[in-house]
């Protein structure tokens, strides 16, 4: 990183850098600090904030009730990530190994469902899972079921919704990572009489690790704080972290506690981020 661009002395660059700095400082750092401050305050009688310092909100985080919600959300997010990885890998592999032209087409095809509204896409799953929905109607018509399966508003439906929503985030980094692996390595493995499974385990997987990690992060973090998907597909049954935070702000109007929860969420995420940073990244690869 020796000879670098000397354009930074150009005025517009300096100006944008400065403005960006001010903007982010004002609308990102300051709000965060504010939330931190509020998380140390108390709740007013009818909601709102009473500026009385207290640790109570953070103490409540240690409450088994909250702990359960944290764990459950982490579990869900983790499971979602794993399934996304499992489902995404084959797809990414195909996309990476195909000609340029097809690659572009496939990539676009993957992105297009994204252009429809996230809410509507998730809602479509409600239509599929309902007792009178597509899936059940099909199953009954084919004679596989007598009664409709209760699919909606279960852990399963939320799970499917999450996987569906975040799959592209896993696929794209994987494609980038797999592309970097020279196909000759795979051929070499075969030349050395490796079985398909062995080649997979010892060559493909380890080399795709950066892709998995990037994709994993991109899936895990939003899943952890998700509240739309559990709301639409979960029927208000299971309290997850995102749902709880939203409820604290908009229903119970306990802003200090909601803030403490949000910080707890962020803390978890940052912890993960650091841990991952240690294991692989660190360099300028992206």
């Amino acid at each position, binding site marked *: 990183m020796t*000879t*670098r*661009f*000397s*354009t*930074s*002395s*150009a005025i*517009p*660059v*300096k*100006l*944008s*850098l400065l*403005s960006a700095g001010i*903007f*982010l400082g004002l*609308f*990102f*750092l*300051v*709000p*965060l600090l*504010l939330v931190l401050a509020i998380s140390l305050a108390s709740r007013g009688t009818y909601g709102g904030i009473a500026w009385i310092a207290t640790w109570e909100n953070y103490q409540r985080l240690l409450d088994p009730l909250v702990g359960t919600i944290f764990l459950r959300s982490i579990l869900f997010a983790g499971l979602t990530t794993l399934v996304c990885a499992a489902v995404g890998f084959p797809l990414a592999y195909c996309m990476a190994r195909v000609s340029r032209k097809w690659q572009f087409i496939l990539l676009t*095809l*993957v992105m*297009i*469902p*994204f*252009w*429809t*509204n*996230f*809410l*509507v*896409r998730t*809602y*479509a*799953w409600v*239509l*599929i899972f309902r007792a*009178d929905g597509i899936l059940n109607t099909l199953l009954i018509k084919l004679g596989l079921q007598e009664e409709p399966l209760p699919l909606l508003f279960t852990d399963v439906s939320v799970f499917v919704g999450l996987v*569906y929503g975040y799959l*592209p985030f896993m696929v794209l980094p994987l494609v980038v990572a797999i592309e970097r692996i020279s196909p000759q390595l795979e051929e070499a493995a075969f030349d050395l009489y490796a079985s398909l499974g062995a080649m997979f385990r010892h060559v493909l997987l380890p080399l795709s690790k950066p892709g998995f990690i990037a994709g994993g992060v991109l899936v895990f973090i*939003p899943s*952890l*704080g998700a*509240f*739309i998907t559990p709301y639409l597909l979960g029927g208000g049954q299971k309290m997850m972290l*995102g749902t709880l*935070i939203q409820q604290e702000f908009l229903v119970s109007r306990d*802003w200090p506690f909601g*803030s403490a929860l*949000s*910080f707890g*969420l*962020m803390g978890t*995420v940052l912890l993960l981020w650091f841990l991952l940073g240690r294991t692989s990244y660190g360099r*300028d690869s*992206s």
Partner: protein
Amino acid sequence: MLFLYLPVLILIGLSFNASTMGVAWKGFTLQWYEKLMMDPSILDATVNSVVIALVSTGLALILGVGTAIGLEKSQGVPMPWVNMVMVLPLVIPEILLGVSLLMVFVLCQIPLGFGTIIIGHMVFNLPLTVVIVRARLRKLDPAWEDAARDLGATSWDVLTRITLPLLRPAIWGAALLGFTVSLDDFVVTFFVAGPGSTTLPLKVFSMIKTGITPEINALSAVMVVVSMVCVGLSWLFQQRSTLDS
């Protein structure tokens, strides 16, 4: 693949279904498309969303490109920390972003509305732009710039005639992605929107709660078609420009 498309296809299919509530097929009809055209609130929301997306992406681009270039070059700045602050808005759960912005607006008594939504969107669009542009910037060969300088170009010239054009794909990528993300954003918008500044995702959410009318199905079908057309056009465009270069 099929998995990805299933819900979309179902939505499109249902948009022609005559039934109001259920999924059972009750006859082919275009009435939902008609209602869509005539429903002012949905159209309003769509326009709002597009405008907000354009403005926030545009501003993020302007600030972001310069920031990316500036960051790549600067010495003496504590890079790891700056990097982290840059990326943080993207990593943090949206709900925290939304809530924190709301708190700031409320305590400073800033009325919620268009402006606050745009600010909210910029908070994640800006880092997005910076990250994307920087990634591309790193791959650029400094030789181009050096050559230009040797030929006597000023900083401004180097910037506009060499760097920016070389960054073109990244800038388009950032613009496209930023626009998409802004258009689709729900969580942050949910918290910072004001009366009358409903965006499409917010509108859809309230419609879902009351029992989604198939108008939304029709709208989704339209959106899918529009995006396919857009992508098709940009692909054609790219084909031509690769011929040029």
